[in-house]
């Protein structure tokens, strides 16, 4: 049993190393504009809205996101190389590595924009992901915990988000949920341009007059001196945050 586990760990390391290498080659060759979506939750919904808006603007083929929320050390390269997971099959992983190499070296067409969820759990996860991808725009959705007593783990995630904020270039953008105090404070750690969004009065992009009915939610979206009435069919504030972040991304790009 121990041997089997050790073998699995070694295999994982080999797969991880090669996927990272092929991903770096792919991104170096095609140099897409990368939008990163990070945070505890609401990454997938935010990414999906961004994809929807950017595809409306640039066309289906020019924008790609992580399928199935592939967003970790193995998932992210799979998302970029557009490959499926090999699950627990060694043979499938070998096949995937061959495909990854072919795509990295010979693929001609590649989307101009990538919208990628970055999933982090442990110290150092963000650093690892940012060795592969260099986003010019990042959105931090929230920093929240799933446990009753969990401040220490929130601080750990905060440090990872801080790393992302610091790594963004000065010409880049950092979009922050202004209703989350931890997220809002990330503004002080980045040289990128900051845009905040939320329900707070001082948010750059703001939702107000929220109403809920059987058909979903209605709110006013206020951004860059304009106000528009929006209806979405999904429930919950998280969907409004996701919609707003995506709208800001569309406006900037």
């Amino acid at each position, binding site marked *: 049993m121990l041997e089997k586990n050790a073998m699995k760990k070694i295999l994982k390391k080999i797969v991880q190393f090669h996927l990272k290498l092929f991903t770096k080659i792919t991104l170096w060759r095609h140099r897409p504009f990368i939008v990163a979506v990070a945070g505890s*939750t609401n990454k997938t919904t935010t990414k999906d809205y961004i994809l929807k808006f950017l595809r409306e603007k640039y066309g289906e083929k020019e924008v790609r996101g992580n399928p199935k929320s592939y967003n970790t050390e193995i998932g992210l390269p799979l998302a970029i190389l557009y490959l499926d997971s090999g699950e627990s099959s060694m043979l499938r992983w070998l096949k995937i590595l061959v495909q990854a190499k072919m795509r990295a070296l010979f693929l001609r067409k590649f989307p101009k924009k990538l919208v990628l969820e970055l999933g982090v759990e442990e110290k150092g996860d963000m650093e690892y992901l940012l060795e592969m991808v260099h986003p010019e725009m990042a959105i931090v959705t929230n920093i*929240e915990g*799933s*446990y*009753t007593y969990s401040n220490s783990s929130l601080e750990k995630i905060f440090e990872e988000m801080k790393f992302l904020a610091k790594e963004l270039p000065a010409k880049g953008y950092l979009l922050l949920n202004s209703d989350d105090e931890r997220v809002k404070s990330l503004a002080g750690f980045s040289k990128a341009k900051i845009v905040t969004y939320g329900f707070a009065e001082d948010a750059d992009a703001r939702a107000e007059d929220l109403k809920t009915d059987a058909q979903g939610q209605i709110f006013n979206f206020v951004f860059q001196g304009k106000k528009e009435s929006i209806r979405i069919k999904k*429930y*919950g504030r*998280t*969907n409004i945050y996701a919609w707003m972040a995506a709208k800001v991304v569309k406006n900037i790009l």
Partner: protein
Amino acid sequence: MELRASRIPGVVSLAQGVPSFDTPEAVKRAAIDAIEKGKVAKYSLAPGTLEFRETIAQYLEKENKFYDFETEIIATAGSIEAITATLLAILEPGDEVLIPDPTYTSYQPAIKVARGVPVFVPLAEEKHWALDIEKFEKLITPRTKAFLFCNPNNPTGTIFTRNQLHALAQLAIKHNLYILSDEVYKDFIYPVKSCEAGAPSAQFNRVNDSNERLYSLAELRGIRDRLIYIFSFSKAYAMTGWRIAFLATHQDLAKKILAVHDTLVTCAPVVSQFAAQAALEMAQEDVKKFKDYFQKRRNLICKRLDKLENVFEYQKPDSAYFVFPRIKDEILRRVAKNGGSWQFALELLEKAKVAVVPGAAFGPSGENHIRMCFGRSEEDINEAFERMEKFFRI
């Protein structure tokens, strides 16, 4: 009956409604990973981890059901906890809860625990165990608070049609009732073409875009303030022992139920929340595989029942993994004299060494029936029928 059967060596059981499969590998791996990473030792938030609830909301969206994961979804310790917590939250002592007859046996005690009174609404067996809306309305009194049902129905393996569900929703609005919709078997719906020709439920109970997806009242936005949608991972993902399910409802109602849930269990088992999250993300192929097996077994058990046509008559199930045959009067008199389905099941257990559940356990309309589960292996089904054929001297 299952307990009694376990004391008799060599019994083949078609009694308990438990699938014969093990939990999918990806689910087990996710649980082990969560344990090894130290994620499961602490209480989660009372409604469950954010990630689990977010995954649930995304999964529900694909089925045209929209809920806010932060305020409208609660992970529970099995669906029975979801049901009991809901009933405790909405009932005053003496309030009546309508349940189909026959239906899942645990609904009655759950209602009684909440100091409510269960009231049976007989289903129309000849109409493929349909819900008779007229009968239903006649049984509504000023004390009626809710209707609790499972769709697909246990023990009949049949589905309530879209029209019946809409009529039910209208009644709920008219009489200000809650609806608890337990959809534990929703993933095991068999294609229309393989259903009994002419079975009414085969034509009207499914959504338009696919004949294998169950239509749910949770898709009807107009009643989201009175509908409690309940789903358990026990059957679809072979996870009965993990005790994990969830409920989804309007945030005002969810708040009331959450207070009871917090009192009862604090939170659902955290390891099971991680496992169930992985189930939604990675085990859909396994669910399809299980369904294919059950469909084959359904066809097998129906074929075997057809050979016993002088003993049983039945409505062919188009979902879940139960069949609920009626015992022909002459056979019942011969085997059980005046003892009804209990005596019949005991005779079958002791003399043929086949365990089934007596129909009376599911309500008065279940009398003269037995429930057979085809969630068991094909070998078990064949062996049970060999024994019954011998017992009935076919």
